[in-house]
């Protein structure tokens, strides 16, 4: 067992434990805070994979923006702040069974794959540049279309969300 493996196991344990807290926490705000810890753990996992850009982008986008947006939304819906009623619905046993079954199925399928036990070696430095990603994104023969579509998707989401969220009456009154 190398020190890197020990670090990975600690990260994985923290990530999974906080993920369990996300789905079981009684207060929604606590669930959101546990989600932030999970996201940090995932960022650390990305760092061990040497996907440096995505490790920092995970913190920038998920924690810096998505988690904050979720917390804003929690604040907008006050009822959820108080602990009222059960946090899980009646069929939660079925849900647990489905999740466990899904996990077992995934592991069973994956472990039959011959590449399952591949050991990931550290990549030589310089081979994992962000520049290569940029070139691929802007090459018309490769990913230029997804690049532009991502922009359209983001704007569509923004326009749609603003259209839904802005209360027309309030705006007109002002």
């Amino acid at each position, binding site marked *: 067992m190398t020190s890197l*493996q020990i670090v990975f196991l600690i990260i994985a344990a923290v990530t999974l434990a906080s993920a369990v807290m996300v789905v079981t926490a009684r207060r929604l705000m606590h669930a959101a805070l546990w989600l932030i810890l999970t996201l940090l753990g995932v960022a650390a996992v990305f760092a061990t*994979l040497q996907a440096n850009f995505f490790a920092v982008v995970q913190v920038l986008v998920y924690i810096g923006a998505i988690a904050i947006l979720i917390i804003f939304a929690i604040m907008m819906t006050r009822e959820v702040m108080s602990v009222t009623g059960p946090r899980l619905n009646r069929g939660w046993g079925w849900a647990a069974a489905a999740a466990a079954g899904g996990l077992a199925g995934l592991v069973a399928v994956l472990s039959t794959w011959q*590449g399952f036990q591949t050991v990931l070696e550290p990549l030589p430095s310089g081979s994992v540049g962000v520049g290569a990603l940029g070139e691929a994104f802007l090459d018309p023969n490769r990913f230029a279309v997804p690049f532009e579509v991502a922009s359209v998707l983001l704007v569509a989401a923004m326009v749609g*969300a603003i259209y839904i969220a802005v209360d027309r009456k309030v705006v007109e009154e002002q």
Partner: protein
Amino acid sequence: MIPLSWYLMLAAALFAIGLFGVLARRNAVAVLLGIELMLNAVNINLLAFWHRSQQLSAEPHVTGLVFAAIVFAVAAAETAVALALIISVYRRRDTVVVDELDLLRG
């Protein structure tokens, strides 16, 4: 130095926890948190496979990275719209509990 299997198992476990959250939680925002967990599990998988294909060949491989970036965009778009819907529904119906949102029931 870490086997690929560890990453895949971590991602599978995270996905299962997220799935449980989506199916079992009553609150719409909590369901959304479950979806975030599942999307993160997907990204772990994508980047782990990217690392594998990168170490198997000398050429720079970016397909996995491109997919991961798209997942980020999708996650952002999905969160934005879902939360806007939840806020809007809360304003009209005064609840965010999924079971009670049964307006479409015949």
